């Protein structure tokens, strides 16, 4: 892709997405981390648009930024911990090393392979995705719907649904360890 528009957009979005991912790591309070995560999702959606994947970009905005963001926020509010910061384990250094090794390996492979490049620009991805999902990949499509309903039912059962008995809140270890913080 050449031209002033796509190139400048790519660099701006690359800086934005990497910056917000680093900010998720370095954020002091967990709510800030969630908001940076949502910014990361939005910047990735913009990158998908840059790659001519308009339907996937809109799906990413709808599912990730709209739904999973809200889900993570609810989870944080339902689990108030003594300090709201995400304290680090003792694996920060080794974690950085592992991340750097993995990223370095992938970058090395990316630069040293002869990719069979072409320029696949779709006139309308919605049409193509619709055709593919109902003709060739119909079985994974149906399995994905079964997976989603299994996840929904599983989540409701795990959390306890409506019939959560109030005894677990009464005098267990949870009430002693938790101080009601902001």
């Amino acid at each position, binding site marked *: 892709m050449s031209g002033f528009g796509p190139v400048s957009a790519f660099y701006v979005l690359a800086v934005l997405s990497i910056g917000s991912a680093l900010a998720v790591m370095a954020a002091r309070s967990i709510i800030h981390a969630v908001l940076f995560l949502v910014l990361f999702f939005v910047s990735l959606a913009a990158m998908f648009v840059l790659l001519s994947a308009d339907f996937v970009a809109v799906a990413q905005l709808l599912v990730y930024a709209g739904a999973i963001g809200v889900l993570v926020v609810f989870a944080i509010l339902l689990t108030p911990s003594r300090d709201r910061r995400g304290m680090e384990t003792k694996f920060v250094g080794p974690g950085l090393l592992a991340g750097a090794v993995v990223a370095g390996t*992938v970058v090395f492979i990316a630069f040293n392979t002869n990719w069979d490049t072409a320029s*696949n620009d779709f006139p309308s991805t919605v049409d193509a995705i619709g055709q593919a999902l109902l003709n060739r990949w119909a079985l994974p499509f149906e399995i994905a719907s079964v997976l989603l309903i299994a996840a929904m039912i599983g989540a409701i059962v795990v959390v306890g649904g409506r019939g959560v008995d109030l005894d677990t809140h009464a005098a267990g270890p949870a009430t002693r360890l938790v101080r009601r913080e902001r």
Partner: protein
Amino acid sequence: MVSLEHFLVVGAVLFGIGLWIALSKRNAVLILMGIEIMLNAVNLTLLAFSRFVKSPTPIAGHIFVIFVITVAAAEASVALAMVVSVYRNRGTIDVDQIDLLRF
């Protein structure tokens, strides 16, 4: 000129950052955020390949990404439900303190 390698580098760096977050945080919800960053980096790489590499069905990359988004949503919901449930039973979601099954 932006080509395939640029997107692959960005995807790799994002994957590395996601792995770093998942390995170095104590709060279970933050670990889940690192996992989501990793999944998104993979999505970016798949779409870059779909756009820039010759293939008989270039739309397969997009289909794969849609399924990854679907599975990530299902997994995030179940994982967060488990986190909330663990919080109710243990009182904490610090993964260093939830170690009853360790040797």
